[in-house]
């Protein structure tokens, strides 16, 4: 959470971007929330993928050991 806030503050302050091309106004609140959520959700995805890699590593190791026995 702290990490995502730091990222959000960083990008809000320092990352420039070109004009939006839209007839629909996303609204400032919705706009800023998406930036925050994007950081949080991609962090979740990263953690989940990291966790499943660790799980997979131990499952494979366990299977290998069983095979060796």
């Amino acid at each position, binding site marked *: 959470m702290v990490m995502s806030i730091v990222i959000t503050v960083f990008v809000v302050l320092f990352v420039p971007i070109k*004009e*939006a091309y839209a007839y629909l*106004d*996303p*609204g400032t*609140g919705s706009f800023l929330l998406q*930036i925050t959520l994007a950081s949080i959700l*991609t962090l979740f995805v990263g953690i989940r993928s990291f966790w499943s890699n660790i799980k997979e590593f131990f499952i494979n190791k366990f299977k290998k050991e069983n095979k060796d026995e």
Partner: protein
Amino acid sequence: MSETKRVFGSFRDPSGFIFQTNGRIYRQVNRCYARAYEQAESSGLFEEAIKKHWLLPFKEVQQVRPLSPEAYKVIIPTLIPFVSFPYEWSFSQIKDAALLTLDLHLAGLQRGMLLKDASIYNIQFWQGQPVLIDHLSFDLADRFNVWPAYGQFCRHFLAPLALMALVDARLSQLYRVYLDGVPLDLAASLLPFKSKLNLGLLMHLHMHAKNQIKFAHQGERTHNLKKLSVQEMTAIAKSLRKTVQRLLWHPSGTEWGNYYSDTNYSDSAMASKRAIICDMLRDAAPKHVWDLGGNIGAMSRLGVEQGAQVVSFDIDPVAVEKNYLHCRKEKETLLLPLVMDFTNPSPGLGFASKERESLTDRGPADLLMALAIIHHLAISDNLPFNYLARYFANLGQWLLIEFIPKHDSQVRRLLASRKDIFKDYTQDHFEEHFSRYFKIVRQQAIHDCERVLYLMKNQLEVTR
């Protein structure tokens, strides 16, 4: 002489608009949308979405003149037999429309595009399933910093679904008041505390509502802020999808939910009723039927068996939900269940009350079925026969109507708790008033029962 006119409700998106000529609907695509159109076509997005029944099929046409010089192309979309609106849909219809919208957005993101708007009015039910009808909704993802339709999606889909699932399914009627979707602060204030324990609702609804209020009057510039990557937009869309997918509504029994197991029809009376209705439907041979009190659609399906497109209306959202789930399970393509209260049918809504057509403006039907409904309208709602006959004459060319006498147990039940002020509720008066607007072509008593079915033909020529 043919008349060409722009469809009134098609004015928001500068990418193009809908117009009508020779009774057909066309869409003009403007030059400013050319790049997005070409990308959607060359990337295979249009083709895939049509193949999956996600996008209404369309064809480009050369022989139809566009309405204005900024035209890039004119396309002709497949005709939708009956246009319906979200305040007429049951929970699962709205949920399926929401999931479809997100799936289209995700399919777009895979090809460097996105849905630039997420209006629930861009979805219609066609052949039993929701489809996107706005062929100008996709745009190039790199034109946008964030998903521009995020707020609209949450107002049009997430907030109403959360309210229906966690508070009361009848809150779908908020669509009638809030045409641009339910304000998130209103939804947040109506939802129970437990909704904050749902991570998806906490992020996309409660935090979203707070953020909107916080920044509403601060006039922050968003032009130079961060641009989300396609992966980040995908993560948000997938999170929304999971949140919507997990919203469930388990309808409990209502007054109509068990109607067919709770009537005074014997097996032979029910068989007789069905046979008479089938005969009458064969006589009138309608292509478009409106069943005004369709319940879970048992009689509506007799119209389908005759090959008609049937809209099966009912006042009860539980009955409509059951009917829709049945249609979905059986992959029925000719039946559309909708919620409608005929004592207060959908009016014209939106700007000048013309953006969303009233029910009457979407008619007339070839045939109206008004089965086991007249006693509710006449006795429960005190509507005089004359009012009913005149209104029905505005809605359809043929009328297949069931008269239920006062001594029928269902009518006695309605009168049990009130004084009988309905001295005119007789078969003679019924025939007299309806004969002012309709010609009674045929009438037949149902076996083993005192109810009578009538087939009537409108004496006026009602046209669309």
